């Protein structure tokens, strides 16, 4: 290699310093998640001190403390982290491959498609719930999670397939794809209503409650599945982070840099649909996390997917953890539906981000 002037070594050193700042941003976001985890563990009807919590976490707490932490609060916490990270990752990658800042599982109709699939499974295929004694919300349980999840996934992937087909075959513009997503959302929402119309009261209550979203619904097995999928998808996305960076310059530029665009876009969309659909299947519709988490982090780390992917996943986890805390502490002992709260708080936050954006474009 020819010797390069010292100015180039200095330029490279400056860039390495800049990268260290980006890594610091990832570390700070991770610290926020840890803080949100502790807050989530502490929030609840049983007054537990931080010391009690930490003892219980390392297996040295009292039986009661351990039971509260490991049976009640920890599953919610892990569900929030896994689902928040899944939705944010899927939104982040969808926004990239569709070249559309509005893309996310909820705005492109993937969540609604998954909801429709789940509603069909609950009402038509007997994957529904049994109502036991007590309040309706306490008695809900999916009797056939595999069926509901499969149907939810198929609903989500069908939406994705239609959007992909539109973009590939008809050369749909980004705005046309969002409009297609709006149309599909509307169609699936109508579909859920139709399914409910022919169901009995109990089934209707079940479907309605199911679509509210609840982090308490997922057991350790489901959480493990979501977390494993999220981790594998994260590895795939991170391995391809330079490809996503190249796609930011448009598909022609990406192809010229050796990116297998024709494989990457459908593969990424399918993985995003899988992540979003499985999350929706287990915890119900949770909107806006997938849309706003990547946008929040773009303000700090830009569009460099080496950093944006981990930061978005962490931000999604933190947002869902904090939303869950708000749900639990706002009107105790009632736990508000998480999906409603993320939409309620997410929309103003999104508007704020939109206004702050350079050029408002």
């Amino acid at each position: 290699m020819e010797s390069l002037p010292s100015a180039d070594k200095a330029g490279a050193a400056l860039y390495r310093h800049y990268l260290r700042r980006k890594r610091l941003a990832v570390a700070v976001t991770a610290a926020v998640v840890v803080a949100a985890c502790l807050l989530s563990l502490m929030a609840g009807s049983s007054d537990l001190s931080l010391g009690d919590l930490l003892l219980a976490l390392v297996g040295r707490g009292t039986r009661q403390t351990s039971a509260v932490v490991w049976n009640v609060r920890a599953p919610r916490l892990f569900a929030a982290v896994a689902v928040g990270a899944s939705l944010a990752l899927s939104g982040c990658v969808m926004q990239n491959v569709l070249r559309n800042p509005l893309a996310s599982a909820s705005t492109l109709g993937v969540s609604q498609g998954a909801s429709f699939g789940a509603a069909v499974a609950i009402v038509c295929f007997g994957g529904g719930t049994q109502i036991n004694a007590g309040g309706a919300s306490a008695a809900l349980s999916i009797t056939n999670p595999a069926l509901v999840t499969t149907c939810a996934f198929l609903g989500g992937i069908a939406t994705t397939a239609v959007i992909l087909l539109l973009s590939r075959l008809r050369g749909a513009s980004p705005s046309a794809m969002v409009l297609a997503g709006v149309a599909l959302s509307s169609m699936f929402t109508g579909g859920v209503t139709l399914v409910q119309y022919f169901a009995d009261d109990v089934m209707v209550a079940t479907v309605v409650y199911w679509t509210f979203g609840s982090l308490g619904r997922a057991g350790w097995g489901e959480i493990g599945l979501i977390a494993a999928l999220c981790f594998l998808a994260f590895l795939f996305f991170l391995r391809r982070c330079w490809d996503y960076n190249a796609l930011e310059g448009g598909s022609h530029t990406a192809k010229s840099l050796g990116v297998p665009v024709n494989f990457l876009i459908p593969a990424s969309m399918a993985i995003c649909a899988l992540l979003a659909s499985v999350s929706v299947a287990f915890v119900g519709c949770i909107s806006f996390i997938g849309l706003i988490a990547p946008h929040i982090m773009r303000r700090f780390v830009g569009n460099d997917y080496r950093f944006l992917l981990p930061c978005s996943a962490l931000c999604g986890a933190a947002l869902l953890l904090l939303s869950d805390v708000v749900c639990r502490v706002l009107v105790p002992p009632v736990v508000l539906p998480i999906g409603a709260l993320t939409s309620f708080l997410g929309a103003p936050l999104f508007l704020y981000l939109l206004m702050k954006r350079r050029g408002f474009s």
Partner: protein
Amino acid sequence: MIEVENLSYAYGKTAVLSDVSFSAGDGECVAILGNNGVGKSTLVTCVNRIRTPSSGTICIDGEDAFALSRLELAKRVAYVAQKNEMSRVTVFDCVLLGRKPYFGWTAGDEDLERCADMIRRTGLSHLQLRSLDTLSGGELQKAMLARALVQEPRVLLLDEPTSSLDPSSQYGMMELVRQITKERGLTSLIVLHDLNLALRFCDRFLFLREGRAFCCGGPEVVTGETIESVYGIPARVAELDGRRVAVIG
């Protein structure tokens, strides 16, 4: 060097390029000229297989471009698009993308230093950590050119590299392209609309008309008759201070 033979391309059933053949040697800048919609951009995007031609062959330094993997092709052919999307990444990040065909998970020291070298040569050192979406049109074009050049290509494809630039930036950009083309012995294919920029900076000229190569050759092919036949407007080519200039109308 690049040799293109009988290249054809069609959008559906509409033929855009028909049997285009030309060749260019090392260190040559080739201007691709013709009216809007005649297939100039399609031609350059066929060369690096962004579009797949329906027939024809492309050889780069004697190698069949269609036999190469996309990654191998990216090490031989670099491309700067007509319109560049401005993402919120720094100039250095953008230029580093050009090294992507060469590294796996992450860029090494050599990659970073080659980028710093090219950023310096394109006069962007003071902007290297600035976001692309804050750059002027000229600065953005230079960043894109730097990204293409760190790919260390044998063939450089530039689709209207001067379209959004003021006259001073146009000359600066073309001078830089010409200089690097000569220095590295590249072959640069440049889609241009400005005949005088082409005459000033290019060695060979490929005129396209109705999807076919109307003529290809050195400065001698740029005549009033050629321009009139290709663009459909009266023109003449005259000598001014020892330089050939095209006068339209």
